[in-house]
């Protein structure tokens, strides 16, 4: 296996690593390899997928389906398989990944290592709830780990940031997918209360709220709530994917531009709401249609702040949304979502409540704001999502993740010399209890 010296970053491009990357195309290339962190499609925003001055294994070329049973919807796939590819291949045969993050480029390995959540978390739980077996290199040996044969290791691997070993493949229980399209109901929410009420009341399998993070005063927290279910209607044809060829200049996402954009985006939906049929990819991965959209933030890149707050902390949420709106720093990409209580792994992010995710350009004011939002999350008993983080403080994170100490123990056994640490794990000193 050849190693390539590279400068690389996560999706936010604000943090950059220099190190050596290998990208094996066969499982046999991984034989006799000393423990090395694995990375997927680098759709984590911060430094979870970086290993500065060290080595990392890019898993994206190990992307095969090893088995698929069309009767039961069980599929074993290699870790580098993109989640959107699974949806594309299996939806016509009546199956779809039970949980999908907002980008189809995320790999199965990355979805396990972050125990990702989808627009159906309140119904389906996190990604790990649908993983029935993980084939991994654990403490130097390839083994298959299941919730039965090694529950401790299984739960430490889901959301485990790759610290328990390299994931080779996983068996997924797919969910039935009755049609090739989605029927999407879009409703306006005039303010935060209405927004939360709509999310709360939704009976749809998939629910997500777009937040206008520039709206203030009486319209603070306004947005559009999308509720969706699978549909048998023919899917509309998808447009060709576009790409952002170069770094955009700074004014692209400046305050007046975002404000104007958001106002139009909101007004697009009639007051009485509307219902549309969309393709599966368009509903689940709307941003994937523009390749490399992260370049819109220019060379310095951007951050996403994502937290979850318990339902009782509406006042904290309101305060955060207000501070964000007043800062004038938010981009159009802001999301509110309801999360259910289920979390499959020891270090999984979800908790029952509401999750807020907002993108900010990488500027001093924004990083100060994100740190402040993190502190408020901690004070409210909430949690910050490590897949998005690049600024949090280690003590704060440890306090947010109740099973952290248990996880440290399992990770230590798997990797006593801490060879699997990534930049994120080092920055937050996560491998120490």
């Amino acid at each position, binding site marked *: 296996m050849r190693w390539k010296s590279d400068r690389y970053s996560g999706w936010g491009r604000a943090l950059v690593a220099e190190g050596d990357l*290998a990208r094996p*195309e066969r499982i*046999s290339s991984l034989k006799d390899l000393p423990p090395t962190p694995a990375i997927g499609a680098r759709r984590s925003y911060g430094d979870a997928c970086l290993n500065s001055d060290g080595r990392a294994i890019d898993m994206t070329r190990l992307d095969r389906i090893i088995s698929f049973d069309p009767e039961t919807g069980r599929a074993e796939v290699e870790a580098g398989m993109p989640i959107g590819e699974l949806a594309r291949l299996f939806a016509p045969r009546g199956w779809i990944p039970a949980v999908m993050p907002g980008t189809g480029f995320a790999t199965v390995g990355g979805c396990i290592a972050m125990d990702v959540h989808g627009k159906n978390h309140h119904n389906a739980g996190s990604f790990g709830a649908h993983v029935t077996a993980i084939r991994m290199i654990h403490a130097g040996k390839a083994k298959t780990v299941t919730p039965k044969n090694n529950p401790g290791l299984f739960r430490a691997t889901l959301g485990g940031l790759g610290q328990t070993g390299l994931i080779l493949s996983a068996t997924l229980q797919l969910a039935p997918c009755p049609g090739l399209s989605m029927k999407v109901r879009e409703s306006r929410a005039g303010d935060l209360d209405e927004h939360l009420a709509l999310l709360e009341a939704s009976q749809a399998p998939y629910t997500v709220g777009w937040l206008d993070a520039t709206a203030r005063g009486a319209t603070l927290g306004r947005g559009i709530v999308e509720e969706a279910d699978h549909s048998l209607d023919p899917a509309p044809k998808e447009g060709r994917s576009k790409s952002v060829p170069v770094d955009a200049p700074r004014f692209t996402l400046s305050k007046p531009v975002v404000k104007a954009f958001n106002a139009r985006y909101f007004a697009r939906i009639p007051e009485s709401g509307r219902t549309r049929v969309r393709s599966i990819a368009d509903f689940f991965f709307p941003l994937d249609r523009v390749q490399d959209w992260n370049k819109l933030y220019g060379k310095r890149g951007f951050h996403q702040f994502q937290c979850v707050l318990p339902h009782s902390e509406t006042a904290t949420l309101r305060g955060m949304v207000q501070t964000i709106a007043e800062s004038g720093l938010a981009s159009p990409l802001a999301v509110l979502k309801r999360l259910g209580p289920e979390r499959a792994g020891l270090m999984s992010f979800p908790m029952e409540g509401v999750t807020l995710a907002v993108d900010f350009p990488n500027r001093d004011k924004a990083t100060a704001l994100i740190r402040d939002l993190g502190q408020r999350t901690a004070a409210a008993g909430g949690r910050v999502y490590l897949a998005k983080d690049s600024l949090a403080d280690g003590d704060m994170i440890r306090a947010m993740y109740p099973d952290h100490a248990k996880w440290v123990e399992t990770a230590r056994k798997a990797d006593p010399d801490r060879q699997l640490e990534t930049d994120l794990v080092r920055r937050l000193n996560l491998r120490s209890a």
Partner: protein
Amino acid sequence: MQETWIILGATSSMARALSRKLAEDGHAVFLAGRDMDDLRRQAADCTARGASLAEAVKFDARAPESFAPILDRLADQEGMLNAAVFVGSMPDQADIDADPALVDGTITDSFTGPARFLQMLAPLMEQRGGGTVVGVGSVAGDRGRLGNYVYGSAKAGFHTYLSGLRNRLTRAGGHVVTVKPGFTDTAMTWGIEGMFLVAPPEKVAADILRAVEKKKNVIYTPFFWRYIMTIIRSIPEPIFKKLSI
């Protein structure tokens, strides 16, 4: 219409991309190479994607006795037979300079091995009155260069072979596409200095299938390599011999 494809050198990422597209169109694919474990995984992948049949078969360009059993398997299949050849090896020119014996292996892998296989396959294709051979050559075969002239000359030989085979199979209703990829983002080019305009293997595979459909004779992929190579070929030898490009 469902057809059968034999893919030589099926573990390469270009071959993988092509075999997936063929599988998704419901064709039968025989995946030939040396790493049987990996080929079996690939066959499973093709099956899950919809191949009517996907099978791993042992092929070693340096072991011609491995050829006949494959041809027997192919002969059992009904309908048109097609082949795509991705085999080849490119040791460092410096290693070849140190050990001239490496010349033989390079030429066997990249030219004479696959040529012998195709020579055995051609009568079968003629009997069935059609089918396509996709031969993957290289822009390196267009002109001998300091950096990789042994590999380049093997590919040049293969290009010429393919042109002759095209002449032959055309008469029987068949066709041969010569593919000259520029830099492709594969394990072979990973981490090698001086790569530019690197194309993803999926793009190369899509170009190949379009060329098959349109019965193109020689394609460069991505297309702009045709212009790059036109320029490189047009440099007069007295100048070229002093360049190191």
